[in-house]
C-alpha cells in the first residue's frame, strides 16, 4: 500500500460530497416516517438521576426503588434510596375513575396492572415506537409519537391539542418493553417541555397484547 495520490484524495472528498448531497436530496423528498431532522433531537444517554421528591408523599402505599437502575437515560445509574408511591389498580368493577396521584418523581416506571388502571381512568397513552409498528397495532386511543421520526414535534402538538394535558397530569408512555428505550427518550423530551408526571409502561405493547387488552390498528389520522 502506498500513500494516496492527489487524485485519490480528491476522489475521497468527492465520494463524501456525493454522499452528503444524496443524503440532503433523499431526506428532502422522504416522507415523514423516514425523514430525519439534520440536527439530532434525541437525548444521548448521560448519567442522570431521578429527581428526588420535594416532600414525602402522603400516599400510604410505598414501594422501594433503591437498587434499581435509573429509568432516565440508558446509563447504568443506581437510584438513591428513596420511596416512591405506586398506583393501586382499581377494583375491576370500579365505576369511578381514580384520581391521578400526585407526581413525586417526574419519570417513573409503571407495571402492567397500573397501566391498565391508567387506561381505565382515561389517562393518555403515547406510543414511542416507529409509526409503522404503531400502524400494525397499538393501545386503543394511543397517540403515535415516534421519538425517532422527524414529525415528532407536530405529533406532540396534535396530542396536546387533543388532550390538553397539564404539566402535572399523568401521561403513560410505552414502546416495545424489554430493553426498548424509546419511551424513556420520549419521557426525557416531555420532561424538558415541562411535564413532570410521566409514567413509563415498562413491559410495553407486547405485554398489553399478551394480556388481551384493548388495541387498535391503523396509522394515526
Amino acid at each position: 500500500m502506498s500513500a494516496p495520490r492527489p487524485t485519490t484524495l480528491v476522489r475521497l472528498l468527492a465520494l463524501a460530497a456525493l454522499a452528503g448531497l444524496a443524503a440532503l436530496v433523499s431526506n428532502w423528498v422522504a416522507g415523514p416516517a423516514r425523514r430525519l431532522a439534520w440536527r439530532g433531537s434525541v437525548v444521548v444517554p448521560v448519567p442522570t438521576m431521578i429527581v428526588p421528591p420535594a416532600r414525602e408523599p402522603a400516599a400510604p402505599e410505598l414501594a422501594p426503588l433503591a437498587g434499581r437502575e435509573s429509568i432516565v437515560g440508558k446509563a447504568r445509574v443506581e437510584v438513591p434510596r428513596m420511596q416512591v408511591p405506586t398506583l393501586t389498580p382499581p377494583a375491576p368493577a370500579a365505576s369511578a375513575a381514580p384520581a391521578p396521584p400526585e407526581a413525586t418523581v417526574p419519570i417513573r416506571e409503571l407495571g402492567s396492572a397500573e397501566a391498565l388502571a391508567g387506561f381505565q381512568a382515561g389517562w393518555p397513552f403515547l406510543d414511542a415506537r416507529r409509526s409503522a409498528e404503531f400502524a400494525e397495532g397499538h393501545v386503543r386511543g394511543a397517540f403515535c409519537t415516534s421519538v425517532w421520526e422527524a414529525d415528532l414535534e407536530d405529533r406532540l402538538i396534535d396530542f396536546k391539542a387533543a388532550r390538553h394535558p397539564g404539566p402535572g397530569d399523568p401521561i403513560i408512555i410505552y414502546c416495545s418493553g424489554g430493553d426498548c428505550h424509546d419511551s424513556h427518550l420520549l419521557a426525557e423530551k416531555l420532561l424538558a417541555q415541562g411535564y413532570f408526571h410521566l409514567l413509563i409502561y415498562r413491559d410495553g405493547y407486547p405485554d398489553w397484547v399478551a394480556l388481551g387488552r384493548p388495541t387498535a390498528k391503523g396509522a394515526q389520522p
Partner: protein
Amino acid sequence: MNWLRHPRLRLLARLILGLVFLGAALPKLADPPGFAKAIWAYELFPAWSLNPLALALPWLELFCGLALCFGLWWRAAALWVGALLLSFCLALTLNLARQHPVDCGCFGTSAPKTQAQRLADMRWTLLRDLGLLLLVVQVLLPAAPGRSPGRSRLGSGSRES
C-alpha cells in the same frame, strides 16, 4: 506470496467488498430513523452527530460499493471502506470491552435478541469486519510485478480509473 497480489484475487476482493457494502447500504437508506437509533445505541456519538451520520453514511456505503463493483474510483472507495471498517471495529471493541450489548445495525434493524446473543453477535461481527479489512488491504496492495494492468473496469483493476 505473489499470488496474494494476483489481479484476479483483487477483482474478487473488490467485488466482495462492493457487494457487502451495497447490501449494507440499502436497508439503511430505506430507514434512516432506524439507523439513527442503531448508532445511538452504541453510546459513542454526540447527539448532534447522530442524524447526519445516519443520513450520510448509508449513501457513502452505497457509492463506495458501486465504485468497488464497477472499478471506478476503486482506490478512493477502498480507502473509505477501510476507514469505515476500522471505525466499526473500534465501536464494537469499545462496547464489547464495557460489556454493553448493541445490535450491530450493519444491515438494518434486526429481530429482538437477548443480551447474551447480542454480545455473541458482536464478536462475530468484529471478526467479519476484520476479515473485510484484510480484503481492503489486498485491494490496496500494489499489483504483483510482471502482471499486466487490467484493460477493463471489471477486469483486474490494477490501474485506477
